[in-house]
């Protein structure tokens, strides 16, 4: 089998990242209740890089995508595109310029296309809104877009209504719509989770091919660790609105550092071993976001919890010798002598033995 095409390592160049999220926060209010969906979220995505964002429902991963897509307004924090900060309340022109560079692919291909419009209409709009084509130029541009995402002949598909297409074909239209404006970054919110297993790989491969051809960057949101590993150069893990771990995908998924990431990995299906052999102690579910503990949000479920965890929210620390791999966990605090490393290594060994 050919190995995955690896883009020339653009991220190694000392250039500004395409996207930089700094201290992003989102509080949803309804009446007197308020929910902090995202807390102090920091992330950089380099040109041509795919960053996987992994977490369970309620972890805040979709909110991060919607904040970045400017579908929600952040309660705090800054979004920088190519180094330039987007104003907190951007005017229509600034917003349009931003949307030209940052596009989104939605999870549900059955609800992300307007049932009353044809595929051709859906794809012509972004071209016209952003003034990329006008009049007669639009139709050929739409057809070539369709053909680029594997819907050929484009003239056939442009007349179709969404209900005349399969889930996989609809998702290809969704990708074409995002591609139309030649963006720098595509936010893909679980683009394959509603699709049949047999076509998930095709969609992921299409996205990777487009990355290679166009130098696109992706924020690839998923709850599937294996999918994240397949797609991404780096993986970020969220829990209860917090970034808890980030690092190169092979290293992070191969040997996860944060106890939550370890739980996620142990819960993933492992066909090579029987169910009884891989018992997982989940210790409950994601906490109520309206009443988070002051310390580490995972502490109530964590098998390694200690007094320091309850005191304050742990900071992100680098793993010894791996500056790209960071984790929000006191077990890796150098000033405490990184006590967790030995402890976690012992548990992992016990589990695999």
């Amino acid at each position, binding site marked *: 089998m050919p190995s995955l095409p690896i883009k020339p390592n653009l991220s190694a160049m000392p250039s500004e990242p395409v996207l930089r999220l700094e201290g992003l926060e989102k509080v949803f209010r309804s009446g007197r209740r308020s929910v902090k969906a995202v807390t102090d979220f920091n992330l950089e995505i380099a040109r041509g890089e795919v960053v996987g964002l992994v977490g369970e429902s309620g972890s805040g991963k979709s909110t991060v995508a919607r904040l970045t897509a400017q579908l929600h307004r952040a309660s705090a924090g800054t979004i920088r595109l190519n180094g330039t900060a987007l104003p907190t309340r951007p005017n229509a022109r600034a917003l349009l310029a931003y949307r030209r560079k940052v596009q989104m692919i939605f999870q549900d291909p059955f609800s992300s296309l307007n049932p009353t419009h044809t595929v051709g209409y859906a794809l012509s709009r*972004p071209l016209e809104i952003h003034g990329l084509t006008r009049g007669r130029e639009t139709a050929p541009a739409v057809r070539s877009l369709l053909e680029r995402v594997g819907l050929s002949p484009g003239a056939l598909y442009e007349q179709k209504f969404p209900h005349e297409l399969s889930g996989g074909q609809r998702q290809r239209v969704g990708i074409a719509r995002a591609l139309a404006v030649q963006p720098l970054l595509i936010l893909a919110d679980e683009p394959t989770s509603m699709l049949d297993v047999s*076509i998930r790989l095709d969609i992921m491969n299409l996205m990777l091919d487009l990355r290679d051809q166009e130098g696109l960057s992706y924020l690839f949101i998923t709850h599937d660790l294996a999918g994240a590993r397949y797609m991404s150069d780096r993986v970020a893990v969220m829990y209860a609105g917090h970034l808890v771990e980030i690092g190169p995908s092979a290293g992070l998924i191969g040997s996860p550092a944060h106890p939550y990431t370890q739980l996620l990995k142990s819960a993933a299906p492992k066909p090579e071993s*029987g*169910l009884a052999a891989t018992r997982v102690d989940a210790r409950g579910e994601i906490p109520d976001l309206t009443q988070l503990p002051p310390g580490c949000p995972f502490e109530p479920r964590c098998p390694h919890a200690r007094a320091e965890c309850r005191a304050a929210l742990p900071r992100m620390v680098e793993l010894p010798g791996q500056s790209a791999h960071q984790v929000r966990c006191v077990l890796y605090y150098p000033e405490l002598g990184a006590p967790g490393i030995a402890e976690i290594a012992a548990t992992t060994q016990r589990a695999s033995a």
Partner: protein
Amino acid sequence: METLKRAFNDRRAVVGALILIVLGLMALLAPLLAQHPPSQLSNDTWLHPNSQHWLGTTALGQDVFSQLLYGSRLSLLVGLVTGLIATVISVIVGLASAFFGGVVDDILSGITNIFLVLPGLPLVIVAAAYLQVSGVVPVIAVISFTGWAWGARVLRSQALSLRDRDFVQAAVAGGEGPLRVIFAEILPNMVGLIAANFFGAALYAVLAEAGLEFLGVGDVSQVTWGTMLYWAQSSQALLQGAWPWIATPGLCIAALGTAFALLNFAVDEVANPRLRSERVAAESKPLALKPAGAPPAGDALLQLRHLEAGYLTEKGTVRAVKDVNLEVHRGEFLGIAGESGCGKSTLAFAVAQLLRPPGQVLSGEVWLNGQELVRLPPEALRQTRWKDFSMVFQSSMNALNPVMRVGDQIADAMRAHGVSDKSLIEARVKELFGMVGIRPEYMVAYPHQLSGGMKQRVVIAIALALEPRLVIMDEPTTALDVVVQRSILQEIDAVRRRLNLSIVFITHDLSLLVEMSDRVAIMYAGEIVELAPSHDLYANPLHPYTRRLMNAFPPLEGERTRRDGIAGRPPDLGRVIQGCPFAPRCDRAMTGLCEVVAPLRLEVSAGHVVACHLYDPNVMKGRAEDHAIAAD
């Protein structure tokens, strides 16, 4: 064009439109059709219908037919104008309320709610009497003023739900401005509702106008259907035998209402392309099932013999389950995997005898614990269900009764099957909760207080309540997060081992299935194409489809290599399939063989059955010989 053609194909729309056209022509052509001026008095009073006066004359000698024609002008005008005004107000208020939200929504919703509780018709009566202006303008004004609120409220909630839909979010993310989002994205999806709103308001206006005039509150000097009724009633037309005077305006109003209702039915379908699919035949034909054979001899708890099931549509029979033969042993965990559309859910429903028209079992036998289920009378089946076998579906957790405590729902299921001892039930509920991993204090919780994972645990507890021997689970954890899924599956597995339950577990997630099951069956195009002990299937998948399916799950370990999905789509099960159903998508298909001859199901090693020519020694030997001959 397409839309018009569709509308003409709908009989209801055609009839409705015809009625409306007739009424419209009556109004437009009144001066041509009427033989007499509508208000002209004459001495020919109380005439019965004749060649001069088709519908007879009134107490004052006016021609009833002419009055009916001219009356339709004002009545329809009131309906049309009022319908338009009320609908426009509803749309503006509803959309503004939904789109701007916040304070705007609060104010507009407040006003709408006040108008909703205003008693419409009495207000119209009072206002009409108070205004005392002649003509229909005050009537139109008053009815529009009181008639928009209901529509505004309905349109607001529709617009609110559309605003959060992904395609609206996608339009915003693509850079569409607010006007375009409202008018090009949201509004086209509301056409059906707006049309219904218009029809409703217009009919309300016609009726209200008739009512006002009938009560004499309006301007009775004009000719409308309403004033006709007023004068006919006050002159005691029925006693004089002048029934057309009172019946025909009434009939016209009824015809208008019918036309609106018929058009309403059709409008939704025309406005929404999604509803334009072919309808399926809703009725199932009773099948002459062959008498069942002898009960199974071995230790199989469940045995399927040549089971065929499908859906009867206008185009013919969709055969979703074809010749399935399968045994499930006591205490066994059997997994069934395949793409969507391969018949695995139909198989589950067919086994449980839960297929509803147009779906039904076409032939074959389902033996469970010595009983044949397909031929079992409904009452006996009801007894067997839950006691001998139970089901858990992906959507089961949404089927919990929202106003009943979850503990009571389990108790209810037990009482329905004859367990009446209260303390026994309570102890059992507590035990079941423990089994599926819910703390007992949640017994008094309502479903909305529980997470999706907890609700699905409750559903599983209900399925286990009567200690069935078999539980059929169709994607029970697919909607749940991985960690929750894992912990529920662990509970299921533990319960199975403790109670020696058999489980048939259906999912598209083959990697999960291999990990959990004793044996795995792979379904494709309604057939079981491979069946093997799970470790055997994992180590040595034989069928090319199984291999591709297995390859479709990227691994968590090892080298990152590019993998491919399965090109193409499963075949249309409504068509007759020749040869191997997977042949068109198979990279190892043998031309001249696979697309022509259906492969046999063969047991190639202990318990490992596969339906593929590649593993049929006779076929492969024959082909080798053919090649040898061809080489000579």
